[in-house]
């Protein structure tokens, strides 16, 4: 389903302002469900992927 973000009823002013600013708050909601160690591990996975993409782009650019 591709619906719009549903603002939590308890969302405070900073949260509402961030939504208005265009932040995808589902990302932070997911992150806050994780332990700090899990967050860093997930970040490492994302980083590995981004570096791989970056390097592939550079290789492609040199061809």
């Amino acid at each position, binding site marked *: 389903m591709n619906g719009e973000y549903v603002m939590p009823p308890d969302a*405070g002013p*900073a949260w509402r302002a961030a939504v208005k600013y265009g*932040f995808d708050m589902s990302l932070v909601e997911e992150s806050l469900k994780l332990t700090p160690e899990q967050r860093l591990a997930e970040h490492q996975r994302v980083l590995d992927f981004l*570096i791989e993409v970056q390097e592939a782009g550079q290789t492609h650019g040199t061809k």
Partner: protein
Amino acid sequence: MAQNDQALLTRLKASGLDFVVIGGVCVVYHGVPLATFDLDVCCPFGEANVRKIESAVKDLHPVHRLTANKLPLEETRSSFGSLKNVYLQTDLGKLDCLGEVAGVGNFDEVKRQSVVSKFSYGEFRFLNLDALIAAKKAAGRERDREAVRWLECIKEKHDQQKELF
């Protein structure tokens, strides 16, 4: 170029260096979904401490990444006593060691405003949420301002949860 923060943290810990994780990795630690491509720590300086940094990364071909000629760390030993910051590129990624954090203060103050977190690979100190917001506000770059927006949402959420208990 690889960036392995866990390995760098583990090596710094094993070197005996007293340090606090700051910067982007600390932002991630607190729950912000932003990627960062370096590891920033705050630590006390002085020759003995820079030697600990060196011992942590000496087999990783560390170079001063911000110098024009990327000077190898080992070739700058004579200046270890006068360094206040070290910005390194290593085989395990970028490692920036800072003697103080704008908006927070020197290492003692940074440590006072940190929290200890126990991971499966060791215990590490991270700048607490309020101090991290102050640091990011002081840094003031566009990406710092974005981080502040996220961090303030997380702080708001924490404060709401505290009110419930």
